[in-house]
């Protein structure tokens, strides 16, 4: 589990471990996700 900040609405949301895609539950923007460390996610780009 980790959090990322949505780049559109700037709210943080939870992503599950090692997922490769996730959508912001607030504004629905869909991202590709990557993991700089096993416990920390970041946005990679738009899905």
């Amino acid at each position, binding site marked *: 589990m980790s959090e990322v*900040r949505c*780049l559109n609405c700037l709210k943080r949301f939870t992503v599950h471990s090692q997922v490769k895609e996730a959508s912001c539950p607030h504004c629905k923007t869909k991202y590709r996700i990557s993991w700089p460390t096993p416990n920390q996610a970041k946005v990679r780009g738009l899905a």
Partner: protein
Amino acid sequence: MWNRKIAIVDLSAKTVTAKPIPREIRKKYLGGRGLNMYLLYNHLQPNVDPLGPENLLLVGSGLLAGIPCLGSGRCDIAAKSPLTGAVGDSNIGGFFAPELRLAGYDHVAITGKADSPSYLLLKDGAIEIKDASHLWGKDTFDTQEALRRDEHDEKLVSLVIGVAGENLVRYANVRTGMKNAAGRTGMGCVMGSKNLKAIAARGTTPIEFADPDNLLRYCREMNEMITSTRWAKAQSRWGTMIIYSNTNTTGLIRTRNFQLNRLVDGEDLEPENIDRYSIGTSGCFGCAVHCRHRYVLKEGPYAPLYGEGPEYTSLGAFGTMLDCRKMETILVANHLVNKYGLDTLETGGLIAWAMELYEKGLINEESTDGLQLKWGNEDVVFDLIRKIAYREGFGDTLADGFKPAIAKVGTDSEYYAIHVKGMSNLHSDERPTPSFALGIATSTRGADHLRSRPAIDMYGLPENMLKEIYGGSVATDYSSYDGKSRMVWWQERLYAVTDALGVCKFQTVFCAVHAPKWREFSTLINLATGMTITEDELMRVGERIYTLERLFNLREGFSRQDDSLPDRYFTEPTPIGLPVAKGKKIDREKFDAMLTEYYDLHGWNLQGVPKSETLKDLNLSKEPSKLF
């Protein structure tokens, strides 16, 4: 550290003297950029030719050089800029600053011009001006290797220029190691104008600190503080390129010069793709973050090639701005500019401008000596980089920077030139972010993010947290203009102090909120030097440094008019991006109001001239004063 001196070198007269650095000057300016600005403002005659022998080249290690934390190996290089005519100042990491200090010196002031190619050697107190004829024409990597060989010392550390500096390209940089560069404002050009190929240092004189045991303990705390931030963890993994993930996704990145704000189909430039080429990361002196990759190209026409980086800036300079979409293009271009000693941002910015002029028909193959300056044409990019460094054909036009190039190509071309005060902006698109836009406009060295960028503005932090950091009200929304002048003012002072201490900007409040800042810096100064400088006093040191730079620029004829943005920021809305960044442009009236507010915070009048009470308050009323 108190016995470290300033070396004063006159290359024309071939004389060298050394002077102590008085404590009261240390307390006012610390070291690095701060002390360099004191020296520059007070010892350079106004309105000199930046390429004349009278220009003063200053090299200074930060006050904290040598402590085991926060990347304390940073060195500051200053002179009057041959690119802009304003303050020339550029900060460089790597290993030079601690080595200079171990050699017995904290600052080197160089004036005059050597009658033939020379290098300066500082070794355990001794200083020699030595012949560099055999090094002239060598690239930046070979020059360093040759110096280590010539001096029979594998631990020799050098600041060098490449052929770009020799050929007086006005944005030639100064380099050390494989990757580190004092990139901006053409300090390598100043070295070239002095026939100075390199400054080499080597020393074994230990650096003493006031309270070594507590310093060691505190440094460890500092390293933990920075490496526990989310920002540093990601940066340790993929370097500054991680910014691309946010900016390109959002739509904050200049593409095709200034036509788009996101590189569509730009997946290959994502930082994660450096893993294909990386053999590991590399760090500057005293750095626990290690943000650059060591990369190898094993295949293709440029292989085999070993390089370090690339930085986020190169992804823009040779990627998005030129519409080149392959990571390999970036790796090769990064290697080439490093080898020749060219500033990546200026080079990419000028090529992007030329490509747009070519597209718009303002230049054609006749003016570019046959080069087809089409978007994404990587071979032309590589060729043009070389031509700039050697001042060949169209490369010669671009080698003088924006203002002379516009004069040569024609005034119609000015609209497409994305520069402030004659210096190219990096590839970020500041139209959706007024705080960033103000920062590049007010930057004393021309368009640049490293003077003030409040990157944490992007995080939508709660107002109470912003108030606590910035000491006043700042809007959460990054597209707002409210309180953003305060942010820029605060960051300008913080970065001035960071550069004076010689620690890394990425290890203070730049991209990470919970990073060391005033209080931690104050503690480090006390433990390392014994000086007591409170947080408030430290902010005043930042103000003093920034105000002195302002005074320098005013003396050189700059004014409020120069604290502005290219017209396109005000006229063209961003065409694409996430809803938060799309359709944005800078509002001229709000921008002006923000600028006035910003002057007021600094204690400068409506024209941006420091008020007499401000100068008095900063103990600047008696400047110029002399150290030598």
